[in-house]
């Protein structure tokens, strides 16, 4: 949403986090800022007074069409009514203000997207029409595929949330078919069900040929049509055989990270990989039911302990471990081959057209590992992981 601005109400920690998360510092005029709480603000004063000049500055400099006013951990603890500032700010500056929660208490960073979408849904027009809304940030490529498939099935053109503009909101009502594209959008769906009576769409998420087939067939069914994607699924598997071949029979384990572990494990399994172990931060029983069912027999651990996971991995010795940046290098240091997981949440890997990229991300890691091992020919010069002794350079050198 190029026309939006994120104003995060929080402390220096939030500011540090934003900066670190965007780590490489994209200096193209940032579309976010932190409203830093000073000691005075921590005494529980009304945040509106403090926010007024800040929002005025943001509006003057950036002219956004919408501001996401994000409340973080500290306002949450102080019971500071940041959300209550949205309406008066909107009225004062004539700019749409979406209040949302973006806090570090959530089990995964991806839930931030859920909160943002929920704040937008709350402003979406109500309708009794039977329409299709696809929920979740997708790339233009991924959206195109979904638009084309819906047209081919003779369905109404889908509306996407978010769209290119933060003001472009699809109508949502009791007859809306609300299709979440990501497995971490539970709260938005629950909100729509509770507030608008929108039935929650439950099937596999559109990752891999199997998931994409289930996703489109379920959309068709929701519009009372019976469409088979069996052939399409088969064609896609055939088209991506090069990537899939490198994964077939390989053992893969997932460490808990962005809540997308379940569908990825499911489609890797469908591709012929052996999925040993899946850690995930949270399972929403009904929302994830189809994915959990498809993973029957796989060891799934919710909110697991990091060291217990390490111990389990040492027993299982998978060919590939999928893990976040926190532990990826440490796992490499233990001798595992690691695919860093964060990439999986921002690469266009949805749908039939994204399936090649999806499997390619995993296959490339294994291919690199195998190629390096082969090119080195032997293990006489093993990689030495950097440990803490490496830094004791002043007194003695590394053994």
């Amino acid at each position, binding site marked *: 949403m190029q026309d939006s601005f994120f104003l995060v*109400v929080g*402390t*220096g*920690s*939030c*500011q*540090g*986090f934003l*900066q*670190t998360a965007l*780590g490489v*510092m994209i*200096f193209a005029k*940032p579309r976010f*800022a*932190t*409203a*830093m*709480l*000073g*000691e005075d*603000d*921590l005494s529980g004063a009304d*945040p509106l007074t403090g*926010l007024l000049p*800040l929002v005025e*500055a*943001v509006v003057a400099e950036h002219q956004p069409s919408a501001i996401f006013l994000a409340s*973080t*951990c*500290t306002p949450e*603890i*102080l019971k500071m009514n940041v959300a209550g500032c949205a309406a008066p700010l909107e009225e004062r500056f004539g700019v749409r203000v979406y209040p949302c929660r973006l*806090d*570090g*208490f*959530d089990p995964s*960073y991806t839930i931030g997207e859920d909160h943002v979408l929920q704040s937008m849904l709350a402003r979406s027009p109500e309708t009794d029409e039977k329409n299709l809304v696809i929920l979740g940030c997708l790339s233009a490529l991924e959206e195109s595929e979904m638009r084309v498939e819906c047209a081919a099935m003779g369905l109404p053109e889908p509306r996407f949330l978010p769209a290119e503009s933060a003001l472009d909101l699809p109508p949502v009502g009791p007859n809306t078919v609300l299709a979440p594209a990501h497995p971490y959008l539970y709260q938005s769906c629950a909100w729509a069900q509770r507030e608008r009576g929108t039935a929650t769409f439950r099937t596999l998420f559109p990752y891999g040929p199997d998931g994409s087939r289930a996703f489109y067939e379920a959309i068709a069914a929701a519009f009372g049509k019976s469409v088979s994607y069996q052939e399409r699924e088969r064609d896609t598997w055939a088209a991506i055989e090069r990537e899939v071949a490198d994964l077939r029979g390989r053992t893969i384990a997932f460490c808990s990270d962005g809540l997308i572990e379940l569908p990825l494990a499911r489609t890797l399994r469908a591709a012929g990989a052996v999925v040993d172990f899946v850690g995930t931060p949270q399972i929403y029983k009904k929302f994830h039911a189809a994915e959990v069912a498809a993973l029957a027999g796989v060891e799934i651990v919710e909110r697991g302990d*990091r*060291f217990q996971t390490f111990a389990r991995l040492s027993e299982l010795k998978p060919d590939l471990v999928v893990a*976040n*940046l*926190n*532990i*990826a*290098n*440490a796992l*490499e*240091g233990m001798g595992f081959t690691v695919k860093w997981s964060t990439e999986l949440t921002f690469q266009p890997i949805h749908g039939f057209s994204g399936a090649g990229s999806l499997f390619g991300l995993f296959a490339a890691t294994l291919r690199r590992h195998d190629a390096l091992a082969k090119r080195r020919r032997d293990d006489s010069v093993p990689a030495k*992981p*950097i*440990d*803490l*002794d*490496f*830094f*004791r*350079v*002043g*007194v003695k050198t590394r053994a």
Partner: protein
Amino acid sequence: MKLAIWSYQAPAHVGVSKAAASFSGIHCVLRAPKGDGYGTIMLAMFERLGVVPPLSISALNEATLAGAAADLPLLLADVDRRHHPEMIVVTRSATASVLQEPLDGEIGMMAPGMVKAEIFQASAHPVRDDETSAFALTTKELVAHFAQDVKRSDGPSVNIIGPSLLGFHDRSNVESLRRALDALGIEVNAVLPLGASPDDLRRIGRAWVNIGTARELAQPTLEFLEGRFGTPWVRELPYGEAGTTRFLRELCALCEIPAERIKAASKDANLLWYARTVDAHALSSKRVAVFGTPTTAAGIARTLREELDMRVEFVGTYVKEWGPWLRARVSDITDDVLVTDDYREVARAIDRTRPDIMFGSQMERHSASGLGVPCAVVSPPAHILNFPLGYAPFVGYDGANHIGDLVNTTQVLGLEHHLIETFGPRGQGRFAEAAPEPEAAHSAVATVEDGAPRWDPAAERLMQRVPFFVRKKARSNVEKYAKERGVAVIDEAVVVRAREHVGG
């Protein structure tokens, strides 16, 4: 409330974690929401640690918000069992401090023997302190906690205070100092916090002299050790070749060893000779500016001025409480000392002075690149690029060589480009992309003022013949000249007259 976009410094808990986790045998536990735990990712990624970092997060969650910190003892026990530290340093983020959890009570009520490690609560204030002051305070606190009365070492010895994990080229800096100290026959008693164990801290009083590489990080520890053991510390900063020699002379005097030994230590130093070589003669006309931590700004500005004869436009730091120190330290180099933690103010200063080379942090690198000004990164805030696999020090003799190389590789080679522009076909060759045209170089920070004079085509053509590396400066000189005289349209005559007036 204050609007913040990019910050030079991280919050206090990052300073505490960096200091505490850098010691060996000490583990840091951060009480914070899960989202505040990004320090572990920085440690794991930037330092490329192949092991689990000695920093753990005791995550606040919805449940702990309601009650007490009942889960903290469990994590402490877990850390104790997994890492076997001698001490666990507990700190909290600003958010956790707002919660006012009774951590003392929770820790105090733990069953005896549940945690073998000693538990230490860092006293840096999560809101009032910043990364620098929290780091400096935590280092001093841990030194004060462990230091014991010990006999001074038989031969001369030093402690090097300030280097840490996630520090700026710190491993290389320590290595460079150690090489020089080896040559002088001075023992390194301890490097801290980087790699020092509690035992090293107990014996810290053995050292004859203390060295603070980054003064803003070391000062409280230097003063504490001076008070406790009477250990003197070196005032000179080990930047540049001559600077390092001065630094070592002061050190030799304090260690009562003959200064002649410095010859052996400096045998590979090339910066002063580089300055004599004809290749470097053009540096005298080059203008530079330096912005960063107070120590790097002072050290590098002096090196560039005294050893390379470059003209220093301004020097600055974002560690505001060290502004007066920096001002005093560079008073003979420039009056223009910029003390601000607003990156936009620094960007405006770069725009105003248009140095030939900017020396700054990653922040300045971004600002400068938008202005078409080359920038060498010499100070934190760092980037993964500042965690080189190899040896790249900034201090000591090897650091001086490295600074010389940086000057060399960062400056735009004006003559080379000019010759290509003159003799080669336009828009071809390896520099075709290197020099942005003035139009393209206008960035977000470069403000176009209202009422700016217009350029007629002939004057524009004339400007194209000005060598690109002075074109921007020349252009703004002409515009300034025209504006001062109320000239609305700049033609060839105005350019010529302006040149007479302001040169260039």
